[in-house]
C-alpha cells in the first residue's frame, strides 16, 4: 500500500538534549497508527518535526499528498505542509480563544480559499459565494463533531472535552489526508474517551483519512490502532501490532520502569 508519511532517520537536538534519535516511521494509506511512550519520550517533538514547526537536525520527512508523488517536506513552512494535506491537533489545546467556535473552524478554511484584501473590501459575487461556502462547510464540520449548538460561543467558553473536539474539527477543515492527533483523550473521562474513539474511526471512514495518534489511554490505543510505535528517551524501542507490542519485553520494561519511578 502507498505510504502517506515516510519519516527517515529523523533526529532533533535542543542544545545538548537529543529529543529524537534516529526515528524512522512509515504510515500507509488509511491506517491508524499510534505513537506511545512515557512522558518526555519525544512524541510531541516528533509531531513538531513532521509538521515542520521544528526543522529536524538530521533526517528527512516525506509526505504523499492525494494524487501526487511523495514530496520532501522537511524544511518547508508549516502552512505549506498544511496546504499539502496534513493537519494536527495540539496536546496543550491551542484554540483561537477569543474567536467563536464557528470562526475557529472558518480560519482553518484559509488554505482552501482565495479572497484577498480587494475581495474583503469590495465583496464581489464570487467572494460572497466563497464566504457562504466557508460558513456552510464549517458548520457542517461542527455538526459532524456534535459542536454545532455552540457555534456562536467563544471557543474559550467551551467545556474542556468539547475544546478537544473543536481542535479536531478545525484540523479537518483544512481537508487533510493525514491527521495527527496529540493526546486527544487527555483529561477526558472514560465515557468521553469511548465516544472519542468512535469519532476517530468515524471520521477516518467519512473523510478517507490516515491517522497518526499519540495517546496515553491504553484501552483506546490498543483497540483502535493497526500498528503501534513505542518511544523512549527519543528512540524507537518497538514497532508492531498492538498484540505484539503489548508482549514486547522492552515495552513492558519501559512502562513498568516508569511506574517504579513514579
Amino acid at each position, binding site marked *: 500500500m502507498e505510504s502517506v508519511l515516510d519519516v527517515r532517520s529523523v533526529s532533533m537536538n535542543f542544545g545538548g538534549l537529543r529529543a529524537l534519535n534516529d526515528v524512522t516511521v512509515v504510515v500507509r494509506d488509511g491506517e491508524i497508527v499510534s505513537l506511545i511512550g512515557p512522558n518526555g519520550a519525544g512524541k510531541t517533538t516528533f509531531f513538531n518535526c513532521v509538521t515542520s514547526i521544528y526543522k529536524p537536525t538530521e533526517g528527512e520527512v516525506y509526505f504523499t499528498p492525494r494524487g501526487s508523488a511523495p514530496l520532501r517536506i522537511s524544511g518547508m513552512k508549516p502552512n505549506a505542509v*498544511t496546504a499539502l494535506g496534513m493537519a494536527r491537533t495540539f496536546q496543550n489545546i491551542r484554540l483561537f480563544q477569543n474567536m467563536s467556535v464557528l470562526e475557529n473552524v472558518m480560519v482553518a478554511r484559509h488554505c482552501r480559499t482565495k479572497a484577498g484584501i480587494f475581495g*474583503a473590501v469590495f465583496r464581489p459575487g464570487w467572494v460572497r459565494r466563497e464566504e457562504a461556502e466557508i460558513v456552510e462547510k464549517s458548520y457542517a464540520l461542527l455538526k459532524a463533531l456534535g459542536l454545532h449548538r455552540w457555534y456562536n460561543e467563544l471557543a474559550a467558553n467551551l467545556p474542556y472535552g468539547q475544546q478537544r473536539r473543536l481542535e479536531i474539527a478545525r484540523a479537518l477543515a483544512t481537508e487533510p489526508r493525514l491527521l495527527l492527533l496529540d493526546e486527544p483523550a487527555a483529561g477526558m473521562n472514560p465515557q468521553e474517551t469511548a465516544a472519542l474513539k468512535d469519532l476517530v474511526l468515524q471520521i477516518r471512514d467519512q473523510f478517507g483519512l490516515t491517522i497518526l495518534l499519540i495517546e496515553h489511554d491504553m484501552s483506546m490505543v490498543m483497540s483502535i490502532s493497526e500498528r503501534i510505535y513505542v518511544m523512549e528517551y527519543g528512540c524507537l524501542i518497538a514497532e508492531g501490532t498492538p498484540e505484539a507490542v503489548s508482549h514486547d519485553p522492552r515495552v513492558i520494561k519501559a512502562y513498568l520502569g516508569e511506574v517504579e519511578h513514579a
Partner: protein
Amino acid sequence: MVAREFFKSLGVSLWFMVLTFPLVAVRVNTIENTIQWRWANLAIVGVGAFVLSAVWRWALVRRETMLANAASGAGERSVRVWDSPVVTRTLGAALLVVFMGIPWLVSTYQTNILISFFLYVMLGIGLNIVVGVAGLLFLGYAAFYAIGAYAYALLNHYFGWGFWTVLPMGGVLAAVAGVLLAFPVLRLRGDYLAIVTLGFGEIVRLVLENWSDLTGGPSGISNIDRPGFFGQEMTVAGTNIYIYYIVFVAVLVTFVVAERLKDSRVGRALQALREDEIACEAMGIDRVGVKLMAFGLGTAWAGFAGVIFAAKTTFINPASFTFFESAIILSIVVLGGMGSNWGVILGAAFLVLLPEYMRAFSEYRMILFAAAMVLMMVFRPQGMIPARSKQYRIVDRELELSGE
C-alpha cells in the same frame, strides 16, 4: 464582609491622616513663633480618603461578583445593545445625519475641533487593525502619520503637486513604509515589538527634525496648499467646511473598510495571528505574509490622515508627530476597546473632544487622563465597547427541533 471593608477603609483613612499630618495640619507661624493646628484640614483628608477608599473597594467587590456571575453562567453571553444590527444601523444613520449637517450650524472653531476628532478616529481605526485585530503592540504609529503629512508637504512645496494627487500616494507610501518596518520585526512580539516600533517612530521624527535642507528642520514647512475644488476660489470658512467633508468621507471609508476586513478571510487570519501564532501557522496561514499585511493595512490610514492633516493646517513641523501623539492614538484604541471600531469612535470622543470642551479643567488634564486610564485598566480592561466575534445566523431545522 461589609465590616471588613469598612475597617480597611478606616485604616486607609487613618494612614493618610498620619502621612499628611505634618503637611496639612501643622503650620508653623514663623513671625509669632507659634504653631497653628488646622484640625479641620485633617478631618477633610480623613473623610475624603475614607470615602474614596470605600468607593474603590465597593467597585472592586462589585467587579468580583460580576466576574463570578459571568463565570458561573459559562457559555451564555450577555446580549448587548451594540450587537444588534438594528441599534448600530440606527445609531450610524443618526450620526451620519448629524455630522452631515453640523458644519453649517457651528462656528469654524467648532468645525476645526471636529476635523481633528475625525482625524484621530481615522488614526485609531488604522492602528486598531494592527493592535486590536492582529494583536501586534505598536508604539510608533505617529511616524506614519508624519510620512503622509510630509509626503504632501514636500511634494507640494517642491513640485507643486495637488492634494488629490498626493492623497492616494500618501497612503501607499505609509503602507510601504509599514511593510518595510515589518520585515526586521517579524520575529518580535509584545514588549519587544513595542520597543522597536517606538524606536522607529523616534527615528522618523529625528530625521525630519535634522534633515533641514529637505524638510526645513524644526521650523517645518509652511504655505501648504489647501485641497482644490475644481479650481474654484473659496473663503477660509468655505475651505474649512470643504475639508470637514473630506475627512468625514475619509472616516466613513476607513470605518467601512476596516469593518469589512475584520469579517473576511483576511481578517480572520489576522485575528488567528493575534490568538496563537503556532496554531495559526499549523492551520495553513502564512504567518509572515499575514504580518506584513497587518502592518501595511494599518499604516496606510495614517498616511491618508497625514495628507489631510497637512492640507488642513497648511503648516507642519516635527512637533506634531512626537511620541505623545502615538500614545494618544494607542490610548484611543485601548480605551475604546481593542479590535472594536465603534470603540475607537467613543475613545476618540473621550480623549479628543472631551478635553476640548472641558478647557476649564485643562490644568488637570494629564491627571484626569491618567486616572481615567488606571480606572479603565482595573474595571474594564477590555475597553468601553469591547470587540466581539461576529455572530452568525445559521438556519438549522434539526437544531431547532432538538429543542435547543
